[in-house]
């Protein structure tokens, strides 16, 4: 693990609910998250596990009918539970920034990309117009766009998918944020381009010395990128561990299932053997009752799984929400 620095974000019991016509939906349910400067934390889960909502909640971007509560929520010395929206606005883009999944829709189609990068500095009054433009072009070069001077004058539709994601990375990084939240930034890209974008992202994160929260469902990326991993299931953290611990000794049956479902290209191919998959789907969040949310799909489910499972610390920094480890 890289040297872990100061805690930049610390959230305890983060709950995000949405009021829907059929009831209150708890998209994120009691999430604890601590991020240190310089570390890469991967938030892993399948569709509907609450990954993206977590990212938006941390950014303070949940609008009604959504609602976020948190017992404790510190970011960069600010208490976000009491911080007024106008102050939060000043942090966004300057201290905390987000990279979205689909760069084409995240960019304003009718404005030049150079202006969109420069505008972060303009919003916060951090530079004059000329200075902002100069720094935007410079950063565009640093994120690996050739002919940055010329490309800055392009519109998003004139760039390739990879170039567009480089632009959104530049937009996220120009304010030198302490925390970058990346929500599946490579999912919409070709595999070859994916690797380049991941390299760029870690390079920018390292040079800024910031924390990176990487939201993904791709365990291949996790192995490559993460210092620590947080596994999310149906809005709850089911396991949290350093990346080595998670791959070597996964605790939660869900994590075990996830890791087993990654195809192993090195293993000898056996005819007729299907890829391992976890049966079933994530439960409807409106219908979860008490007890372990994974028990319907779990091959090690037991009677006591009907009661809320405790969060158990297996070793330093390795926590699991499962009855299997209770009373050991």
């Amino acid at each position, binding site marked *: 693990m890289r040297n872990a620095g100061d805690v930049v974000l610390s959230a305890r019991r983060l709950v995000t609910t949405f009021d829907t016509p059929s009831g209150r939906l708890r998209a994120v349910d009691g999430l604890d998250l601590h991020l240190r400067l310089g570390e890469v934390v991967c938030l892993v889960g399948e569709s509907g596990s609450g990954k993206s909502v977590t990212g938006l909640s941390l*950014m303070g*971007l949940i609008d009604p009918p959504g609602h976020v509560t948190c017992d404790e929520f510190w970011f960069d010395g600010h208490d976000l539970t009491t911080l007024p929206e106008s102050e939060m*606005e*000043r*942090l*966004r*883009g*300057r201290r905390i*920034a*987000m990279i*979205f999944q*689909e760069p084409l*829709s*995240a*960019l*304003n*189609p*009718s*404005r030049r990309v150079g202006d969109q990068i420069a*505008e*972060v500095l303009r*919003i*916060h009054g951090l530079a004059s117009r000329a200075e902002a433009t100069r720094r935007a072009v410079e950063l565009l070069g640093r994120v690996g766009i050739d002919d940055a001077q010329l490309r800055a004058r392009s519109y998003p539709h004139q760039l390739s998918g990879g170039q567009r994601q480089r632009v*959104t990375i530049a*937009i*996220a990084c120009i*304010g030198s944020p302490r925390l970058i939240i990346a929500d599946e930034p490579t999912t919409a890209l070709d595999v070859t381009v994916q690797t380049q974008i991941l390299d760029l992202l870690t390079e920018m994160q390292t040079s800024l010395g910031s924390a990176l929260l990487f939201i993904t469902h791709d365990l291949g990326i996790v192995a490559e990128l993460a210092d620590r991993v947080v596994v999310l299931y149906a809005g709850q953290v089911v396991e949290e561990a350093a990346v080595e611990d998670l791959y070597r000794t996964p605790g939660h049956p869900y994590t075990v299932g996830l890791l087993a479902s990654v195809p192993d290209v090195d293993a000898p191919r056996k005819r007729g053997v299907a890829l391992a998959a976890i049966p079933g789907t994530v439960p409807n969040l409106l219908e979860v009752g008490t007890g372990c949310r994974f028990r319907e799909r779990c091959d090690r489910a037991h009677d006591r799984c009907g009661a809320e499972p405790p969060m158990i610390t297996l070793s330093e920094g390795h926590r699991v929400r499962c009855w299997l480890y209770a009373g050991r």
Partner: protein
Amino acid sequence: MHVTAGPWAAAVYLTVVVILAVFADILSPRDPLAIDPNNILASPSAENLLGTDELGRDLLARIIHGGRVSLEVAVSAIVLASAIGIPLGIGIAFSGRRVETFAMRVIDVFVSLPEIFVAIVILGFAGGGLTTLIGTIGILFFPQFARVAYGMARSIRAREHVLCAVSLGAGTAWIIRKEILPNMMSVIAVQASFTLSFAMLMEAGLSFLGLGVPPPTPSWGQMIGGLKNYIFINAWPVVVPSVVLFAAVLSVNVLGDWLQDRLNPELRR
């Protein structure tokens, strides 16, 4: 881009009309107000290329000067309508849900008012004249701009690039200026072009009824209104301004359609 003959013809015709209107003082062959009692309701001749009206005034000169009034009123009214309607629509889209519902119902009421009737009432009380005419037509058409701006602002606001801008610390004013407005301009342009033809017709209709620009200043609608009384003496004079107006409105519509297809292909019916 392939442009068919229709839009070309429309563009050429409107360009000619606009140039004649703007430079009417130079390009008009005669004084549009000069009366000639010995040559009334004449058909075209070498002297009067498009004939003369009931007071012997040259029709070509009056068409050229009348175009100036017609265009001036229509364009100014559209500018006024969008200057009121666009900020209002965006403002409503960014207000709370209650304000939103209430304001849009009020706008609906405005849209459902019978336009010509309201115009007659306003102009009847305020009297005709260039400014009142522009003001009246502008007020009649601003709700349409408010509606379009409201709808566009709401849909653009839900797009991810707006969320992205918010995630960078942009406030509401910034979002409106940099994210919402630039992305709605193409739809607004199409709306403006269609409303322009309605405004031209409205001006013509009101002038026809004698509620527009007071004589002797010519406008197309007013000429039609005056000349229609002599249709059985000589049908020619009333046909001239009618055809000119018809072609102008048609041209604006054809260009509006073309603009629609070009700027907003996804809205093509």
